[in-house]
């Protein structure tokens, strides 16, 4: 710094800086690890008996918090059902708050990997965050089991990226043919939140829909997270002469959209199709009767009529006093995936788990049996669901199977 500050006689101000540095020092659990490559984080390659550290990074704040709560519950339920063990190893679960966007989510993943030295990371709701940590998990050789984020290009067969949830495009695709069949030559208006996921859901749908002979009446992309009023768009839908509407919305936007679809008189006249997030969990509760008749595609519904699912729904409802959502199942399955991998793995290091993940075969899940495809995305069936009254409340009743 320039010496021209010398003429000032006041005492130096470094005390506050020392305090800051001291505060930084408090954050350290080990010393001097930032200048050398400590190799793969977490666990050890020897023995099968040691505990395993797992990082659960889901939103505990921000708009995605409800998803984070469900995912935590799902993961925790699996642990509770298995004596807090995965693959025979006692689990030391480290939770971190993903927040809403990558500016909180990426540091959270960084923290569990380099400070807590976890052997695997589970979670991640936001696709941007998932893409942002891809490099970090690969570099540190810690496998990431993505339990929600659906960006199409996220999983690409890399050893450290696995996904127990879904890809945006394929959910959209699953609705293409059924909608084309339903409108019988009529046109469909498509609408989505204007961000990467919204475009992927629409692209997937359009691809399958037009391949099945369908025609698009019009398209609209609404500002993501900033749209509260759909009247201007719904008015265009009505003018377009479309015979049905396909949309992608989630969270608060899903609630407002579905309610307005009803109050502006479209519900009951133009069938509404969407990826299942439009009517999943707390969102459906807030929509109430306005959601009746909405048809969606998803890889799960808590009304799925199988023994495995009924047992799961019973246990989950007993533990958390609410029925499970797709988000809970995705995290539950992520735990199942890790359970199998750790049972096969040579030790508990991230690298060993990553190697074992390739050979775990089929997962028995409440949603049915599924396995990882070549890209490490779940190869899974989709269900066509319709919102109907069930036992006095509303539920996503399964009315068909989709490819």
């Amino acid at each position: 710094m320039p010496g021209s500050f010398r003429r000032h006689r006041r005492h130096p101000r470094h005390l506050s800086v020392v305090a800051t540095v001291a505060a930084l020092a408090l954050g350290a659990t080990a010393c001097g690890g930032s200048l050398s490559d400590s190799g793969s984080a977490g666990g050890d390659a020897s023995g099968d008996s040691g505990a395993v550290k797992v990082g659960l990074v889901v939103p505990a704040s921000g708009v995605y918090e409800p998803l984070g709560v469900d995912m935590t519950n799902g993961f925790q339920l699996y642990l509770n059902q298995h004596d807090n063990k995965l693959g025979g190893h006692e689990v030391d679960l480290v939770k971190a708050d993903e927040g809403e966007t990558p500016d909180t989510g990426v540091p959270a993943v960084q923290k569990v990997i380099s400070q807590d030295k976890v052997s695997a990371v589970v979670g991640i709701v936001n696709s941007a965050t998932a893409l942002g940590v891809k490099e970090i998990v690969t570099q540190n050789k810690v496998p990431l089991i993505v339990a929600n984020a659906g960006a199409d290009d996220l999983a690409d067969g890399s050893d450290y990226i696995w996904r127990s949830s879904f890809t945006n495009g394929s959910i959209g695709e699953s609705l293409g043919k059924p909608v084309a069949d339903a409108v019988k030559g009529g046109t469909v208006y498509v609408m989505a939140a204007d961000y990467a996921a919204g475009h992927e859901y629409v692209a997937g749908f359009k691809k399958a829909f037009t391949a099945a002979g369908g025609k698009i009446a019009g398209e609209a992309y609404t500002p993501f997270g900033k749209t509260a009023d759909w009247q201007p768009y719904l008015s265009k839908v009505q003018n377009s002469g479309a015979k049905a509407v396909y949309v992608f919305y989630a969270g608060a936007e899903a609630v407002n959209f579905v309610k307005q679809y009803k109050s502006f008189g479209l519900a009951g006249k133009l069938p509404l199709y969407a990826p299942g997030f439009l009517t999943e969990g707390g969102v459906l509760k807030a929509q109430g009767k306005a959601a009746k008749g909405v048809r969606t595609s998803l890889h799960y519904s808590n009304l799925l009529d199988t023994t495995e699912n009924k047992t799961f729904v019973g246990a989950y409802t007993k533990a958390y006093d609410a029925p499970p959502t797709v988000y809970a199942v995705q995290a539950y399955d992520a735990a199942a995936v890790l359970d199998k991998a750790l049972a096969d793995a040579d030790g508990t290091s991230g690298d060993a788990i990553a190697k074992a993940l390739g050979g775990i075969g089929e997962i028995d899940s409440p949603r049915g049996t599924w396995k990882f495809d070549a890209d490490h995305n779940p190869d899974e069936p989709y269900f066509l669901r319709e919102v109907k009254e069930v036992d006095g409340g509303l539920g996503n009743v399964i009315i068909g199977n989709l490819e």
Partner: protein
Amino acid sequence: MGWLDANLLTMLNGLALAALLFLIAVGLSLVFGTMDVLNLAHGVVSLTGAYIGVALLDPATGTIGFIVAMLAAAAIGLVLGAVLAAVTSGVSDHLRQALLTLGIAMIAGDVLGEVFGSDVRSVPPPAFLGGSVEILGRSYPAYRLAVIVLSLIIGVALFLVLERTKAGALVRATVADRTMVEAIGVRSRLVLGGVFAVGAALATLGGLLAGPVLGAQPGLDNTVLLLALVVVVIGGLGSIRGAVLGAVLVGQVQTLGVSLLPDLASFLLFGAMAVVLLLKPAGLLPARYGTGARA
């Protein structure tokens, strides 16, 4: 179908949005004009109103129940406003006011999230307004029409109080020259606290009325705060007529604007604000006597 026919409903809908924005924003404007306080907790005050709706209303609630909820929201708003007036009274610097009120907003937002959960919640309209009416052959929710009417009534009442009563005259004089009012010995503190309380009550009321349209969710407070700031700055800080005009403008930008220029939808609001401020830095209708928007 002509252009007007095609867009009339959208413009009407813009008015409904404007009605809600006016109710929420006018308090922010008055508090700034009279007390020179930039209250960034205004959004969370408004969200509190929406959550009062979540707590007190269900789809079966009749008109009486809804009026009770409105009174409860207004009463709680009055208290919140009085508390905020007291807390901010010793802080005259705008930046420190921002630090204080945004700090309070962050704490209150977290507490609301703890109490009501992080899920988006819906607020049902009163049962008799739950349906839709036919306008130009299209369904339109009756509740939104009611909001326009109610907001007009409140706006006119507010205007009359300010223009025709002694307290109103004092408020106007304070907007014009606060130090002068204090110098001539008027015990203005009570009136000023009253303005803060009434402004907050309008915000909670507006939040409650916006509930059936926007729902209630953590984070909505920031959205509402930004919209309210845009409304009052476009209109002119401290001016009721400005708040009306600002609300109408923002309402139309958010409806007619996105309908005509869908590709630019996400740029319209702040783009419009920037253009207005660069052309008329004091806002479109600055407070008549005043220096509310003095820069």
